[in-house]
């Protein structure tokens, strides 16, 4: 039962973060928010008994993707500057 509560909290945070990722004016915040969505998703995977997936999502989705986004953001900023 406590799992369910955790899951609900996770779900709500993920959704809020997702909306934020898309609608926040600041790109840095958006990128971080997207990373948080991924991170919380990996916790959710753990709850769903999928540790392999959770590891992958954490490493790739919230780790590497975010890094790449920041690089791209940097690049675009420079191009526009």
């Amino acid at each position, binding site marked *: 039962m406590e799992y369910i509560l955790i899951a609900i909290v996770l779900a709500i945070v993920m959704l809020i973060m*997702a909306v934020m990722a*898309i609608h926040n004016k600041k790109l840095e915040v958006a990128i971080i928010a997207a990373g948080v969505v991924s991170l919380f998703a990996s916790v959710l995977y753990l709850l769903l008994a999928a540790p392999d*997936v959770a590891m992958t999502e954490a490493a*790739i989705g919230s780790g590497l993707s975010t890094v790449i986004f920041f690089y791209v953001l940097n690049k675009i900023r420079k191009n526009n500057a």
Partner: protein
Amino acid sequence: MKYFSLEYISIITGFLLVVIGIWGILTQKNIIKMIIGFTIFDTGLHVIMVSIAYVRGKTAPILDDAVGIKDVADKIVDPVPQALVLTAIVIGLGVTANVSLCN
């Protein structure tokens, strides 16, 4: 309350993430945000897949000592979608990287 359980909550979350992701892809002018929409879309899909793998009250498909090797079928969740998600996540990264490149 049938829907008030782990798998339902997560699958709903998954679907909602997918919708939000598509919304982002379709409406955002900023390309980075479009790509973020993309990753959210992907994450949503993965959540759905993992939820489908879930079997109520079962543990991870790793046959360590806690599970043993007898009557495994009654103890673990479905490993197949998990394997697929693994692949899908990596593919998603490839796609995201490529999309990011194209601007």
